[in-house]
C-alpha cells in the first residue's frame, strides 16, 4: 500500500506541475488518482450524501486554488488530507453551530426542552444518515473522528496524523485511546438498546 501511495504521490507531483503550467486536463487525472482516498475520509466524517458530494467538490476546488503553495518535496497525500480534514471539520463545526442555534430557537419558542419534538432539520438529518453505526460516531468530537478515520482507514502513523491535525504524537495517541473507548461504550450501549427493543417485541 505504501509503494502504491508513493507512486501516486509521484504522479500527483507531475500532474500538479502540469496544472500549474496551465494544462487544465491534468486536474481530472489528479482527482481520479486521489478521490477514493479523499472520499473515504469524507464519508466517515459526514453522513449526508449531498453534504459529502458538496464537500468533495469544495475540497478539490481548494486544492486547485492552493496548488501553487504545495511543496513538491513533501508527500502530496499529507497535504491533500490536511485540506480535506480542515474542510470536513469546518463543515461539521458549522453544522453543529446551526443545530445549536435551531435548538436554542426551539427552546425559546416552546419554553421547554425540544427532545419531545424533533425539528424538521433534525428529522431530515436523521433520515439522511445512512447507517446507525455512523450515527454513533456523532458522539465523538470531530477531531477525534478525523483521527480515528486517518488511523483506521488511511492506516497512517501517529506522527503523520499529528502533522495533519497539528498535534503531537502523544496527544494523537491520547485522543485515539479516548475515542476508541468512547466508541466501544457507545457500541455496547447500542447493542443493549437493540436487545431490549427486540425483547419487547
Amino acid at each position: 500500500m505504501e509503494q502504491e501511495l508513493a507512486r501516486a504521490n509521484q504522479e500527483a507531483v507531475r500532474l500538479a506541475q502540469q496544472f500549474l503550467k496551465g494544462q487544465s486536463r491534468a486536474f481530472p487525472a489528479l482527482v481520479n488518482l486521489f478521490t477514493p482516498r479523499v472520499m473515504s475520509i469524507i464519508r466517515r466524517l459526514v453522513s449526508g450524501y449531498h453534504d459529502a458530494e458538496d464537500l468533495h467538490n469544495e475540497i478539490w476546488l481548494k486544492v486547485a486554488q492552493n496548488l501553487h503553495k504545495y511543496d513538491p518535496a513533501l508527500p502530496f497525500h499529507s497535504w491533500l488530507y490536511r485540506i480535506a480534514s480542515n474542510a470536513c471539520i469546518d463543515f461539521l463545526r458549522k453544522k453543529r453551530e446551526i443545530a445549536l442555534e435551531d435548538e436554542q430557537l426551539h427552546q425559546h419558542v416552546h419554553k421547554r426542552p425540544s427532545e419531545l419534538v424533533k425539528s424538521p432539520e433534525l428529522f431530515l438529518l436523521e433520515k439522511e444518515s445512512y447507517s446507525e453505526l455512523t450515527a454513533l460516531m456523532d458522539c465523538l468530537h470531530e477531531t477525534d473522528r478525523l483521527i480515528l478515520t486517518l488511523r483506521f482507514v488511511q492506516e497512517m502513523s501517529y506522527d503523520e496524523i499529528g502533522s495533519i491535525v497539528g498535534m503531537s504524537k502523544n496527544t494523537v495517541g491520547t485522543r485515539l485511546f479516548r475515542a476508541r473507548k468512547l466508541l466501544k461504550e457507545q457500541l455496547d450501549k447500542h447493542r443493549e438498546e437493540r436487545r431490549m427493543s427486540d425483547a419487547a417485541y
Partner: protein
Amino acid sequence: MPHIDEFTLMMYSDGELSEEEADSVQKHVSGCHHCGSSLERMMAEKRLVADRFFSDDLPPLSFELYEMTSAQIHGIAMLHKRNRRRFLWRMILLCGSILAVAACYMMFWQRIWLEWVSPAWTSWKSHLFWSSALWLNGSAREFFHVPGSYVMALPLPFFLLIGLLFILNIRFSPLPPSRLSKREVD
C-alpha cells in the same frame, strides 16, 4: 512488577513504540498473564471498532465534480497559464532591453562613458567610503564639471532606471484576454 497501562498497550499494538520500548513490553507481556489478557482485549476492541465503523461497506458516491466546480478549476488553470506566459513575455522584454542597451553602449555611448564615468570612478575610489559624503559636499562642482557635449550622459542612468521600471510594470501583452475577463466584461 507493576502492570503496563492500557495506553502503552494500545501504542504497542499500533506499533507506535520505539524498538526498545516494544521489546520491554513484549518481554513483560509474555511473562504476565494480566497484561497478556489486557493486550488481547485491546486487540479485540481495536478489531471490533475497525470492523464495525471503518469497514468498506459504504454506499457508493459519484466521483464526478460538478460542472460549476470543473469550470472554476479550468478558470484557475487558465490563470496559471496566463501568468506563466506573461512572466515569460516580461523576461523576453527584459533580456531584449538589456541586449539593446548593451548594443547602444558598444556603438554610441562607450566613449562618453569611458571619458566621464571612469575619471569619476577613479576619483571616488581614491577617497574612503565613509568620507565620500563630505568629499562630495566639497567637490560636487568639480565632480559634475563635465564637457558640454557630454551633458546628455548625466540623465542616462535615470532614463535606464525608468525604462527598466516601465518594462517590468508593462501591462501590454500580445496574449489574448482570459475567459474569465471576457465573462466579467459580459
